[in-house]
């Protein structure tokens, strides 16, 4: 699809500036996100192409203002909804629980 993810050849994003001694994860939640995705992927419920397409379908402004592992979270939520493994109500309940945890 002609989505915002297809950035090759575009200008205006600034220079690529690799971190020195880049850590594998920048926060503990990223480590958990990695484990969650890998465990879900290993079940074979979805394939890598479905995973990538769910990221491409993010709203363009949201895609550009969220991080790599936030893209993974969005995709995992979407494919699990699409495959019927979780319900919209379960997902919204987990969001509100997470919000309470932050309050």
């Amino acid at each position, binding site marked *: *699809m*002609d989505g915002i993810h*297809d950035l*090759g*050849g575009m200008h205006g994003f600034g220079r690529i500036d690799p971190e020195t001694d880049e850590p594998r994860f920048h926060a503990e939640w990223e480590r958990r996100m990695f484990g969650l995705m*890998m*465990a879900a992927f*290993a*079940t*074979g*419920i979805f*394939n*890598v*192409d*479905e995973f*990538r*397409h769910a990221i*491409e379908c993010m709203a363009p402004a949201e895609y550009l203002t969220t991080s790599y592992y936030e893209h993974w979270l969005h995709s995992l939520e979407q494919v699990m909804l699409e495959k019927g*493994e979780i319900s919209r109500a379960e997902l919204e309940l987990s969001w509100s629980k997470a919000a309470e945890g932050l309050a």
Partner: protein
Amino acid sequence: MLVLPADKVISTFTASGSLRVDSDIAAKFKSGDSVVVRTMHSSGHTRLPRYLRGKRGVIHMDHGVFGLPDSKAHGQGERLQHVYNVRFAAGELWGRAYAFERDSVHVDMWDDYLEPV
């Protein structure tokens, strides 16, 4: 729901990760062939970057047979076909005035993305 048991985690993630399929499906192209990339504005998934549409390149190597992501992303089956590494001259992609002559870009491309020149 399927689960990944704790005692299978290490073996699962240290196993070979290639999605290459053993198949005698014929390749449409061979190394050295000139190709042109199809122009297609599918609203579904593809591994074909927009900046390559309509560009000419040369088959660099044949990776073997793989499923087509454009199909697999939408539950439409594997549609097995060859995947090639294709070389594009930087000038072909960005314009000769904006590229160094010695530079090139290599991209992995499925048979369905390519036409003979």
